[in-house]
């Protein structure tokens, strides 16, 4: 079963680094999306946070995946601000709690961690699916991952399906009228624009798929 292809500490670090690079790459694009329905800072915020994160990673004392995630979360909380700081910060802190003390995890562990992360985002952000937020990416991605795992898919296959679901969820935010976050102030005018946070969450899933395509679970693909 899928638990047999372990995700190592190095894989986790690679994921975070890949996401940080992707955020840097897409900084202008994310900010542009936020211009349309927000305050033109989402890319800037995420980049500020993940630049701080990659500055912290080399200093981590041991190969504890949970500790790494917690460091990411705390760094985001302390450097991002805005809505995305506490939301992504809590997400990673919950990932950290779910994987505390582990040097490697399996797909099931990853799903459980995502469960906790998404629950954290829901708890502090109080958003529902369809409110036009990052949840509209994270929830379907997690569900896709779980279904794939249940059907015995490999980590890579499961991730590929999660990325596809994330992309769909992200695109599905376009027609939505926002009910949470800054975009909600626009009322009907928020429809027709892709949510910036849903987009960065898609990049987060994509970064995992990219980082682990050749690493975890051998050299598949």
């Amino acid at each position: 079963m899928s638990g047999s292809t372990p995700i190592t500490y190095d894989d986790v670090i690679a994921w975070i680094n890949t996401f940080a690079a992707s955020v840097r790459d897409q900084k202008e694009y994310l900010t542009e999306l936020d211009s349309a329905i927000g305050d033109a800072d989402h890319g800037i915020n995420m980049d500020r946070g993940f630049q701080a994160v990659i500055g912290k990673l080399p200093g981590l004392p041991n190969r504890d995946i949970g500790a790494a995630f917690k460091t990411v979360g705390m760094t985001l909380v302390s450097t991002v601000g805005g809505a995305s700081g506490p939301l992504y910060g809590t997400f990673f802190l919950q990932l950290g709690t779910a994987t505390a003390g582990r040097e490697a995890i399996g797909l099931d562990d990853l799903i459980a961690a995502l469960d906790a992360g998404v629950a954290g985002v829901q708890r502090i952000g109080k958003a529902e699916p369809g409110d036009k937020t990052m949840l509209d990416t994270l929830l379907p991605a997690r569900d896709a991952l779980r279904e794939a795992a249940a059907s015995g898919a490999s980590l890579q296959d499961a991730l590929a399906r999660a990325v596809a679901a994330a992309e769909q969820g992200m695109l599905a935010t376009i027609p939505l009228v926002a009910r949470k976050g800054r975009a909600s102030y626009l009322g009907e005018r928020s429809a027709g624009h892709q949510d910036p946070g849903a987009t960065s969450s898609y990049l987060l899933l994509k970064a995992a798929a990219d980082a682990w395509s050749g690493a975890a679970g051998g050299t598949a693909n």
Partner: protein
Amino acid sequence: MKKLINNPERAVDEELAGMAAAHGDLIRIIEPNVVLRRDAPRPGKVGVISGGGSGHEPMHGGYVGMGMLDAACPGAVFTSPVPDQMLAATKAVNAGAGVLHIVKNYTGDIMNFELAAEMARAEGIEVASVVIADDVAVKDSLYTAGRRGVGGTVLAEKIVGAAAEAGADLKTVAALCQKVQDNVRSMGMALTSCTVPVAGKPTFELGEDEMEIGIGIHGEPGRTRMKLAPADEITEMLATPILDDLPFKSGDTVLAFVNGMGGTPLMELYIVFNKLAQILKGRGIAIGRSFVGNYITSLEMAGTSITLLRLDDELTRFWDAPVHTPALRWGV
């Protein structure tokens, strides 16, 4: 982008250094980017702090001082500050009587302040929070993020700061803040967008003959884009939803606050005030206090917002009480 800055990433830090150089008699800056009242903590006094993204100057840093805020937490431009700032501010102003957090209703501000409040409580500090949400351009609803906090925030900080200065306890100060929130309404509009320094270009584009009605204070677009109209019509468009919302009634006395968004000359604000005074008169509402100027801004945005606060003796007394901050000073 044309700005008097050296480096977009360092703009807020250099601004705070400039504030410290200019107003060292009133404030000092402590890590991580907290504007602190020079003589904080004041023995026995309830601490009052606020904070939010930068770019709204003089709010909040310009309101730190005697009779107003004990500390302000400026985030990056238009970005809620991080909890570390509010935690440091809360600890620095706490004198044992507890600390009030005045929070503008934005998802980010709410969450970051709440994280800080939890951490402060974990360290044994009593913290109360009041959320300001006075923007009638946004429909209020249980299922949305609700109304934004805008101009009413400045009035709340002044009035609540006066009560804290006078020795009111945390519960009283928090209740007074809620009373301001319950009696204040605002609405704003923009003639131009503004440019977040790090973004480097205007947040939105507006045609030469267009304006945005129902904007907030973060350079975000408003509820509707319209053809440019004369100042009198614009004033009607802002005042009417405000007056109908509370609703303000004939016989009420208000504090009438005409605010500039940063790039609007005073001449235009007085033209708006002139019409607002006529509208209020027409509704039988008296202007008890007037407040005109650039007090809660969106960088260099051209535009205005109107805020009306229904006054009673208590609110009037605390509004009139002495204040001495970089941006607001009277009675001393």
